[in-house]
């Protein structure tokens, strides 16, 4: 991606340099050729030229449209992650970057990723707007309180890269910096294996789901006062209002913080708000847990043990990856 951005950048530099040089050349040439030689001299009559006016309106317009199309195409790709991504969550707060890997591993101001894999970050902020900026990847996206933004990259070279906060966020704005550590796959595996024993993010979410008593209403058997959440992520949910929404991260978040905003059809607005009771990171764990709840097959009511097996163990059903880097179908594809 960096190469594509640079190609357009240098095209723009070339076009700009061309125009600056041409304009400067004309100004200097006319400036010398037509300098005032006698006091009281005046300029000569010049016939206006409609053709010239049209030419220097149309040519910049055409060039501009080329630049637009080229830039838009890059942007389109920048905002569309591939189907298979390694998912990581990021939470910005004054003044640090917090990362949560799916295997439960947490980092602050350091992000470890493997080389050559598409990494998708889903981010939000605990307080004010921050902006996740890795210059080497030509990549930037604001993290905004109250909503999730995503960005993705595929690092092609191992190394350590600057991570900056690019949106002014207060006193230590320039201290809200970190490092993206891109590692060879085997080193990355070793790094992953060195994680703490907290269990996967989804299993942390499952524990919260029990501690916060979510489970008393959102029962897997569908007999609770709230809807069963198995298979809900990525599905279309009919609401009491008659609307239909896609249950994405933003919907789950809203349903936890402002439950009465979008009530699923057939349910009462009984759920209390969890605003102020759960942190952004706990929200992400809960969401990750809900994502892990696959649809119920009648024959196997508890098909998917929440959170999956411990990190490092292979999951035959999903191939050789550990859950921390399991590949997920991108629901927004």
């Amino acid at each position: 991606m960096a190469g594509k951005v640079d190609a357009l950048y240098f095209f723009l530099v070339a076009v700009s340099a061309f125009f600056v040089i041409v304009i400067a050349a004309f100004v200097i040439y006319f400036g010398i050729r037509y300098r005032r030689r006698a006091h009281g001299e005046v300029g000569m009559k010049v016939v206006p030229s409609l053709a010239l006016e049209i030419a220097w309106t149309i040519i910049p317009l055409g060039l501009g449209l080329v630049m637009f199309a080229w830039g838009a195409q890059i942007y389109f790709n920048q905002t569309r992650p591939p189907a298979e991504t390694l998912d990581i969550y990021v939470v910005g707060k004054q003044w640090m970057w917090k990362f949560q890997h799916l295997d439960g591993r947490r980092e602050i101001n350091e992000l470890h990723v493997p080389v050559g894999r598409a990494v998708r970050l889903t981010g939000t902020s605990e307080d004010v707007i921050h902006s996740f900026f890795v210059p080497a990847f030509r990549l930037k996206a604001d993290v905004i309180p109250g909503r999730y933004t995503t960005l993705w990259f595929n690092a092609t070279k191992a190394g350590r890269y600057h991570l900056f906060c690019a949106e002014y966020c207060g006193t230590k704005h320039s201290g809200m910096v970190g490092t993206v550590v891109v590692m060879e796959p085997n080193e990355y595996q070793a790094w992953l294996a060195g994680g703490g024993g907290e269990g996967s993010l989804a299993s942390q979410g499952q524990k919260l789901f029990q501690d916060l008593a979510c489970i008393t209403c959102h029962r897997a058997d569908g007999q609770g006062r709230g809807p069963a959440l198995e298979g809900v992520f990525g599905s279309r949910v009919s609401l009491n209002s008659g609307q239909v929404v896609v249950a994405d991260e933003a919907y789950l978040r809203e349903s936890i913080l402002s439950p009465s905003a979008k009530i699923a059809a057939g349910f009462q607005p009984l759920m209390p708000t969890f605003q102020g009771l759960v942190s952004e990171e706990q929200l992400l764990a809960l969401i990750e847990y809900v994502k892990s709840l696959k649809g119920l097959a009648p024959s196997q009511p508890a098909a998917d043990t929440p959170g999956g097996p411990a990190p490092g163990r292979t999951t035959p059903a999903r191939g050789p990856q550990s859950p921390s880097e399991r590949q997920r179908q991108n629901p927004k594809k």
Partner: protein
Amino acid sequence: MDTLAFPRTHYLNAEYGLKSWLLTTDHKRIGLLFLGAISLFFILGGIFAGLIRLELLTPPGDLVSDDTYNKLFTMHGIVMVFMFLIPSIPAVMGNFFVPIMIGARDLAFPRLNLLSWYIFMTGGLFTLYAIVTGGVDTGWTFYTPFSTLSSHSNVMTAAIGIFIIGFSSILTGLNFIVTIHTMRAPGMTWFRMPLFLWAMYATSLINVLATPVLAITIFAVALERALHMGIFDPAYGGDPVLFQHLFWFYSHPAVYIMILPAMGVVSEVIAAFSRKSIFGYKFVAFSSLAIAVFGFLVWGHHMFVAGMSVYGAMIFSVLSFLVAVPSAVKVFNWTATLYKGSISYQTPMLYALGFIGLFTIGGLTGLFLASLGVDVHVTDTYFVVAHFHYIMVGGAIMGYLGGLHYWWPKMTGRMYPDMWGRVAAVVTFLGFNLTFFPQFVLGYMGMPRRYHAYPPEFQALNVLSTAGASIMGIGYLIPAIYLLWSLKYGAIAGNNPWGAKGLEWEIPSPPPTFNFDKTPVVTEPAYAYETREK
């Protein structure tokens, strides 16, 4: 040259005493009141800029504390944008010359004009009060929820100051629109008007239409800070990005409030010092209006990384490329005006040529920011800082200084030493480029803006930038000295020291209180240089 006599009575000596200035309704005196006020604000903003550049000499934040640094760039932005650049050319030269250039005795609403100045001063004092009692640290952009939730500085005092200043812009804009519509002298048709007036007209339209949105936005911030109404802060159910939409709906057109007047000045100066009519007059005139109209439709390009929808971003991107076209048309027409002219290089012309160079670079680098894929990388970096300084300092301030030097003899009746003027113009141009060109490179390397401390690999370019800033400072200091000197010791200017066309050059310098003894009748288009006897 004929011996020139200073007129015996003119607007400056018609009345004496403080009261005669503070209660004046003479558009020329009000212009000078604005000149005095904004010059002080410019010095203040310049001091903030100097401290910022000093801090950035070294990578760690070692000169001032981080909070102080954040306040410095905030107050630099607020003072320069709202208290210098936005009023600059319209309030000083517009006030002084709009009536004269259309052959009128004053603006349509002289007392409203004086009110504009008092409103401006009231707002300015509010903002000054916010500065001296601890300052503001939100950035001049006041982004929420930082400004509503997080900042403990004098946000509301400063914001109220800006809110008040806005009404000054609205009233001045209204005054100009009505004046240009209704008070043109006989024969002064729309297409005989000097292009400075077209620029003032376009600017006034933006002032009247856009400034209320800024007022509404500030009011909404106040409601949220004071009453916790959920408008922008997600904690109260608001949307922080809504603020950015509202803010840039004003503040992008505000860029054109700053640059269009300078373009108008450049048209006057290029014509006068090439002694030629502006090539493609109507194209230059209508490009001002086109910029004013398109300028309202591109605000979203400030928010391409703020979670905007992909297709929304594409629409704002393509519109941003469109708004570049009328600016390009102006540059081409100015260049073509030089062809077969009789070009002299007195001070105003050097500023105007400097403007063309710097504005061209500023405009072309704007294409990088309109271009989505590149904007993602360079937005919120020093690339943006460099780009908008090329427009606002390289463009607007070069235009302002060009206009000030062009009309200074008319305003004061005295000449300044042209040699020093030319030296200052060249020093400013060189210092400016040394200050801001390295910042394009810094931005592409990834240095974010508003950083108090930065990684060591960025130091060399920052040192260059600071060195340039000190040269630029000298470039601004020289005119301050010789212009003040000229008030007493300058040679007598006479009616028309440049041999320029235009109604303002047909009356004495300084002009009499009511400008014209009898209403002039206009019989030829603007810039009819070529028809004159040699």
